[in-house]
């Protein structure tokens, strides 16, 4: 049983997805989906323990030896990402029932859970596999289900957002497919470990360069790195609230993992860093992304959309870390990967609660929320503080490492810009605080009745928000794992 953990991680949600359609009762489907997600979480914890104790695990699918068959290879980096995805998915799902019942029609709910599990399986597959073509297949499984999930949004704008994302996502995925084709032409293999061995001697070849360019642009489209981020704000703000929380916490993290995997393991540090000006490009795009997205975020009246732009900015920080490329910087990226999942997962869940109670989450809805929904609003404030990166929250930890990495390399400008970027986050979070605590509630000012978000959503949201504080104080687990994972990435692909 334990030997089969890597495949169980992926096959469990994949098999469970169609089974959802057989169950009629919506509560039962929800419980079933939640159980599958928690089972996946248990598997990922076991995997992480095994990898931490005994090093990378390889698993041959169907017993076919590696270069011919598909190989799953779990090392510290993907075990960590698998853990993040399954953990966040489980928390988000525990809030799903309440929110989905309100936002979706009865006939749509079963389909919703089936699509959710498909998307979940796709994301886990991308992370677990050690085969380049398998990455493309799982990428499309997760993307196609994501388009459908977004289109479930109530507003008709959700349809248009889903269509736009479909066009851009398909172009991105096809670019990755072209890149993989070029690599296969040159090396005759699709196995990532084999590719890592065979690419260095060919690094002068323009075909390999073209392959890298296609794969890089394709992944950046999925990642929503600054100039390619146009699909993200619409998709996040129109999708059902639970979908937004799930995607914000997991999908971009998986794309970032792919970027790390391809630049560091498959193409190798020598190729992507020494030969190409990738570091300048990533730092530049990352910083422009931080500023452009944060400034746009300040002017958004729709808060879901505001946080979506803030996500684009946060992706910028992570990419800056990859650009700097030292062990400390990669650690900052890996830490922020985890931390941002906690922040945005928590914040979007709270917004789900707001939408449940108020029917929307525009800035006007926030007036006086400090009095009518004290606990809900407190969650947003704590999450916002973490997003800004104040001490005692996780946001501080990752920004601290990022700035330390920039100073280590004498990139003073980068360090200053990262701090300035955080100040912009203060501006948009303050807008919410001002509306909630310094403006009178809507309606009768005499009788201020307390109408908290429903507990079914508020509790999971607070769980994530509390994790923001817990891991901001007790940083041992994420720091230990990310140190080891960063060293592993820089130490070359294989072992």
């Amino acid at each position, binding site marked *: 049983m334990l030997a089969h953990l890597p495949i169980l991680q992926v096959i469990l949600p994949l098999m469970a997805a169609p089974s959802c359609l057989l169950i009629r009762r919506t509560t039962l489907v929800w419980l079933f989906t939640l159980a599958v997600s928690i089972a996946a979480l248990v598997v990922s914890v076991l995997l992480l323990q095994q990898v931490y104790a005994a090093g990378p695990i390889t698993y041959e699918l169907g017993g076919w030896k590696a270069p011919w068959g598909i190989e799953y290879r779990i090392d510290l980096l993907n075990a960590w990402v698998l853990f993040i995805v399954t953990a966040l998915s489980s928390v988000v799902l525990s809030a799903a029932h309440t929110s989905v019942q309100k936002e979706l029609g009865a006939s749509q709910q079963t389909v919703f859970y089936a699509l959710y599990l498909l998307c979940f399986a796709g994301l886990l597959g991308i992370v677990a596999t050690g085969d380049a073509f398998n990455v493309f*297949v799982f990428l499309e499984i997760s993307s196609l289900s994501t388009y459908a999930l977004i289109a479930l949004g109530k507003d008709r704008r959700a349809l248009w957002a889903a269509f736009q994302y479909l066009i851009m996502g398909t172009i991105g995925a096809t670019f990755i497919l072209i890149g993989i084709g070029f690599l296969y032409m040159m090396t005759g293999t699709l196995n990532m470990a084999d590719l890592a061995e065979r690419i260095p001697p060919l690094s002068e070849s323009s075909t390999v360069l073209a392959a890298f360019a296609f794969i890089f642009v394709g992944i950046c489209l999925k990642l929503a790195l600054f100039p390619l981020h146009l699909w993200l704000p619409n998709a996040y703000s129109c999708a059902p609230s639970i979908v937004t929380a799930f995607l914000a916490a997991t999908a971009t993290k998986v794309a970032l993992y792919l970027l790390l995997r391809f630049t560091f393991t498959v193409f190798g540090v020598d190729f992507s860093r020494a030969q190409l000006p990738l570091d300048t490009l990533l730092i530049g795009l990352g910083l422009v992304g931080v500023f452009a997205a944060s400034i746009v975020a300040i002017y958004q009246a729709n808060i879901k959309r505001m946080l979506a732009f803030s996500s684009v900015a946060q992706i910028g920080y992570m990419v800056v870390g990859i650009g700097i490329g030292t062990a400390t910087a990669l650690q900052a990226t890996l830490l922020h990967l985890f931390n941002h999942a906690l922040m945005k997962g928590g914040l979007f869940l709270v917004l789900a609660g707001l939408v449940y109670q108020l*029917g929307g989450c*525009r800035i006007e*809805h926030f007036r006086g929320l400090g009095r009518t929904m004290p606990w809900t609003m407190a969650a947003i404030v704590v999450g916002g503080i973490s997003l800004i990166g104040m001490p005692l929250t996780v946001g501080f930890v990752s920004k601290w490492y990022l700035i330390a990495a920039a100073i280590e390399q004498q990139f003073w400008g980068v360090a200053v810009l990262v701090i300035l970027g955080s100040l912009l986050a203060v501006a948009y979070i303050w807008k919410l605080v001002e509306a909630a605590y310094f403006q009178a509630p*809507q309606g009768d000012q005499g009788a201020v009745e307390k109408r908290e978000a429903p507990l079914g959503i508020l509790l999971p949201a607070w769980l994530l928000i509390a994790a923001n504080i817990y891991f901001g104080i007790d940083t041992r687990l994420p720091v230990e794992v990310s140190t080891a994972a960063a060293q592993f990435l820089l130490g070359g692909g294989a072992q």
Partner: protein
Amino acid sequence: MLLASHYNYWIVIALMMIGLYMVIAQGNLVKKIIGLNIFQTSVFIFYISVGKVDGGGAPILSEGESLYSNPLPHVLILTAIVVGIATTALALALTIRIKRAYGSIEERDIQAAEARQEQAVPEIHPQPQAPAGKEK
């Protein structure tokens, strides 16, 4: 002759550019989807032509054949074709629903409708609108 001997790649590149151009330039959603299809098809042709071995036969065990084409790219691309069909089906389904919701499948009309919707500030539910309170 480099140009003539690699004509398959020129076809791929031409199709790819035609497809991408259609996706970007066409305002009609169905035409965009057709462009996307041409773009994907060019990649299929690329994979299939990569697997060709000069003078090689079909990769089936038979007497007198010792040189075979590489079957792996063909198998890979079967998967990609299935993915392409799923994408097209989903895109068309979305187009039908967009047509019902917006009454048009022209990008320009939809964007105009979006802009109108964006400007109209939605009412705040469930509480009735009331003048902002004076207490602070």
